[in-house]
């Protein structure tokens, strides 16, 4: 379970669920027709996979810094490695470095095989709980 994912309307739109093992969240985006971006292949819209990665990273930061309201992304970079098939997608994030103000986070999304990721994210999050950047 993750407070970020439970509270976010858009996470519900995507159908996201989270499971926690130790300190690490695994987020699932169950397949649904409304995630399809290319009906000819068919393939998931890359945006839905990117959003899954971004929300997973955000939820993992929130898990690691429980005092914060909602971690705010400064920037995210997503590499699309494989086409997303019409199946469930899973994602996990790792905080690579957390300083006083900024955290660098890596995340990967996969379908059948965790060793064959379909997309990878690297992102910076602002750890300060101030309004605006």
């Amino acid at each position, binding site marked *: 379970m993750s407070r970020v994912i439970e*509270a*976010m*309307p*858009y*996470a*519900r*739109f*995507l159908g996201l669920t989270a499971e926690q093992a130790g300190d690490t969240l695994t987020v699932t985006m169950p397949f649904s*027709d*409304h*995630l*399809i*971006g*290319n*009906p*000819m292949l068919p393939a*998931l*819209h*890359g*945006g*839905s996979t*990117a*959003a*899954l990665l*971004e*929300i997973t990273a*955000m939820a993992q930061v929130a898990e690691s810094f429980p005092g914060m*309201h*909602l971690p*705010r*992304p*400064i*920037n*995210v*970079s*997503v*590499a*699309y490695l494989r*086409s997303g098939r019409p199946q469930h997608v899973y994602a996990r994030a790792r905080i690579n470095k957390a300083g006083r103000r900024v955290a660098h986070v890596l995340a990967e999304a996969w379908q059948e095989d965790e060793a064959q990721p379909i997309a990878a994210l690297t992102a910076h999050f602002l750890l300060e709980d101030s309004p*605006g*950047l």
Partner: protein
Amino acid sequence: MDVPAIAPLLPQLASGAAHTHALGFTYESLDGDRVRIRVPWREDLVGDPDTGVIAGGVVTTLLDHVGGLAVWVSLDNFKPLATLDLRVDYMRAARPRTDLIAEARCYRLTRSIAFVRAWAFEDAPDDPVAAAQSAYILTTARPERRPKPETGE
């Protein structure tokens, strides 16, 4: 100015797939090589229920998608393509309960790769909520190369 051949297809390309339809994307305009799409504000697209601001992931999807449209505008043709990578800078919080517009421009097109910049904003691209830099690969060229199967296992 001549209307590009791709222009009549843009509304369908903006919102025709299940995901873009579900998100409510609509085609906005084409001005030279700059194409715009809109995501109307909706309760279920919100990232932070305390503020009513559209989620970052929706902005990312909007920027990814409008970038693809910019490539088709640049090609003046519809060809299969895939996003290679996408970087988004979030410059400021979006205004609560407000539609967002994204504008994109393909500023370099090679035989296989298209380079795109895109911005998301409420009113004007010079006051962006987010900016993106992305690359797309034209996927028609040839089938995916696979590693040779390992032997001796």
